[in-house]
């Protein structure tokens, strides 16, 4: 069994499941800060009711995000040991910074956020919410820094480390800030944040729309929907602009990846394919419906400028085309849909007709699935488009700033001169291929076994998440908070406990 393929499948499975939750947390965190801030400002109980309700759902999402996040940190070592040896010196700093600066902040103040309603005053509670939201944003900074370094490495040099018969390379930091602000970090980070805001907003709009349709908790649902709609509209529009800038950046630093996104097989005028199915063998798009010169225009503001195609990439360095092409289109298609949807809703909202437009509310109930798919598809395009590299070496550029070609007419990737422990020097590639990055000591059957176990557990986890989420939605927000409700809830809890103890007793007797 192919350890590389299995390890990739396992990583894809675990990261995609994990990544359902962090963007929700980031997006909902912003809404929670808004709701609690409004409560502090206006003291209207409806804001507190809303904040309390969404906090419960936030906590549920957060818990699954944490539980599945540890898997990611361990998986670099368990399945990708050679990769860990290669990137540890650079990647590790970002990960350690994430732990120190983000995880402690999030987990500490989450306790106050979730359990502290009756233990701290509203100002301290608001502060805790702000800290949790900041923590989740800090966390995204460091992980995107690390991932962006794999796309567009900077601030490091390659050195040979070897012991015994082993001859391993690794990247070592030369400049921390060059590493942090590598050429793609800022744009990708903005894109990830906006995508998280879109998802958080659509998640809240979905549940609120359902309440409105069912005529339950309407005042609460209207308030929540309006707040989320504002965030969703602004983010949906902004992400299109961010995506456009990012497309150009990808083309500049990772031309092979952009060629895969667009299935641009042959260098020349870039057409923008709207529909179609790429055939990688034949190097054409079947059933192609395209805007002639559209890609050239997006990249160069000119319909005829030639765009670098996959034919300029060495065959062994070419990424697969089908997955990046399709997922890129799914992401953009959905993104354009979100703009249309949120703008329409915003216009109707201004005219005071939104909450009577039932068909649109129904669309919003389900649109959250689209937002999740768009987040996943974006990452799938970004990561599969980077293949066959796990750390892609930078492109060599000529004096004109255009990619330099080698004698065979292919784009050149940077190489590095390294000195082995025995003193001999040699030229090596400045990146790392995914196929060379897996653990030396792990076998196919082991990975197959862990895939099966992760698969079962994540299916169970996903199902339970839906059950509990549904239960919370059915229960709905509690009525505005007054003194005494706690005692009632405590008494109810006591009754529940009593019943459980009775059944427990019977079980022991029988």
């Amino acid at each position, binding site marked *: 069994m192919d350890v590389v393929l299995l390890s990739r499948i396992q990583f894809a499975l675990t990261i995609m499941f994990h990544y359902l939750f962090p963007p929700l947390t980031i997006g909902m965190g912003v809404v929670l800060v808004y709701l609690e801030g409004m409560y502090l400002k206006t003291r209207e109980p409806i804001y507190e009711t809303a904040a309390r309700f969404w906090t419960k759902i936030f906590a549920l999402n957060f818990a699954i995000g944490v539980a599945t996040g540890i898997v990611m940190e361990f998986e670099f*070592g368990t399945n990708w040991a050679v990769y860990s040896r290669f990137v540890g010196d650079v990647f590790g700093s970002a990960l350690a910074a994430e732990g*120190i600066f983000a995880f*402690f902040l999030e987990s500490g103040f989450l306790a106050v956020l979730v359990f502290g309603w009756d233990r701290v005053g509203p100002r301290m509670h608001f502060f805790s919410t702000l800290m949790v939201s900041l923590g989740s944003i800090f966390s995204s900074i460091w992980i995107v820094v690390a991932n962006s370094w794999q796309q567009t490495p900077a601030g490091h040099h390659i050195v040979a480390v070897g012991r015994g*018969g082993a001859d391993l390379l690794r990247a070592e930091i030369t400049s921390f800030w060059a590493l942090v602000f590598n050429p793609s970090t800022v744009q990708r980070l903005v894109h990830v944040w906006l995508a998280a805001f879109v998802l958080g907003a659509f998640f809240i709009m979905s549940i609120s729309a359902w309440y409105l349709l069912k005529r339950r908790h309407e005042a609460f649902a209207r308030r929540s929907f309006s707040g989320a709609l504002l965030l969703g509209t602004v983010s949906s529009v902004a992400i299109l602009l961010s995506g456009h800038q990012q497309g150009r950046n990808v083309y500049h630093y990772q031309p092979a990846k952009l060629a895969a996104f667009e299935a641009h097989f042959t260098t020349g005028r870039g057409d923008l394919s709207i529909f179609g199915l790429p055939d990688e063998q034949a190097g054409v798009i079947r059933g192609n419906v395209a805007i002639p010169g559209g890609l050239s225009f997006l990249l160069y503001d000119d319909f005829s400028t030639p765009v670098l195609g996959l034919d300029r990439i060495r065959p062994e360095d070419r990424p697969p085309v089908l997955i990046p092409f399709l997922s890129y289109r799914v992401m953009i298609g959905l993104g354009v849909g979100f703009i249309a949807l949120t703008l329409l809703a915003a216009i109707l909202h201004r005219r005071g007709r939104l909450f009577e437009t039932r068909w649109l509310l129904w669309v919003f109930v389900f649109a959250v699935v689209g937002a999740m798919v768009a987040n996943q598809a974006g990452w799938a395009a970004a990561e599969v488009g980077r293949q066959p590299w796990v750390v892609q070496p930078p492109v060599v550029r000529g004096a004109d700033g255009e990619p330099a070609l080698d004698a065979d007419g292919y784009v050149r990737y940077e190489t590095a001169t390294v000195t082995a422990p025995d003193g001999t020097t040699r030229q090596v590639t400045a990146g790392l291929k995914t196929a060379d990055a897996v653990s*030396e000591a792990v076998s196919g059957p082991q990975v197959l076994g862990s895939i099966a*176990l992760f698969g079962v557990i994540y299916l169970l*986890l996903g199902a339970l998440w839906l059950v509990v989420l549904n239960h919370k939605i059915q229960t709905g927000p509690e009525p505005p908070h007054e003194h005494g409700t706690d005692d009632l809830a*405590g008494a109810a809890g006591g009754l*529940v406990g009593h019943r459980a*103890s009775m059944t427990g007793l019977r079980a022991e007797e029988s």
Partner: protein
Amino acid sequence: MTLHVIWFVLMAALLVGYAILDGFDLGVGILHPLAKDDRERRLFVNAIGPLWDGNEVWLVTFGGALFAMFPEAYATIFSGFYLAFVLLLFALIFRAVSLEFRGKLTSAGWRRAWDWAFFASSLGATALFGVAVGNGIMGVPLDHAGVFRGSLFDLLGPYQVLVGLLSVALFAVHGALFLYLKTDGAVQDRLGQAVWHAWGIFLTLYLLTTIATLTMVPEAAANFQHYPWAGLVVVANVLAIAYVPRALFLRRYGRAFLASSLTIACMVFLFAMAVFPNILLARNDPALSWTIYNAASSEKTLRIGLLIAGIGLPFVLTYTGIVYWTFRGKVELDSHSY
């Protein structure tokens, strides 16, 4: 002290923080079957409700720091102990979700299932940590590239299993003392009894482990000849262990908890002394070991890491202080509890 030694000490400090803090909430999980009814079970899980997640971050940060500062050791350990880490991950996932899901529905069957998951995952994770420590002291066979190619069964020798059991007993004592401080009434009386039992089992296992270490892995004590002052930690360890029953007898449970915390700190320190300057000892040939020198990142990274830790740690301690202060005192169940 060189940068490498400073980072070794910092890693040990992270491990001490983790073992003391997550130690009591893992212990609460191990003792979970002692709770007699749903109210008591809720008391148990809510005693650690606001705290366990932050405690686990110490482990996450330890893992991240190992990756950053000693990537070769991180890669060899995590890939070589593949199945053990996958099992540990399952235990940690189940623990997190059992705490989170348990209170969400009121059905008795639902709660019973999560109670079992919480107990089994706490026990499993603790035992695995102990087995890992046992393997750290024993060392594992490494090849010339510094890779460990073995199976889970190579890691489950009698010595390693003994250390695994010792960890379970230690965290049970620690967790029982924590719960004692957090509860009152009948359940507190029962916990008072449980501490005595757990302490008795711990003491037996502690003596057995000490004998086993000195006879089966005598080289673990070699550092004490180079650093005689480390003998003071052994004395402190014995005094801390002996102080637990004294404090129990005097009904000074807060002090007993401090003594069990000190015991944990001493034991992690002794573990660090047993392996130093190795991170992973090669049992077949010590020259192949991963040490704090050959497994480390570049000096620049070690320095950057030190700066990050220096800036971050005061904040971390502040948050931890705020959270523990906010949730001080006996557990109270309210509508926000699990």
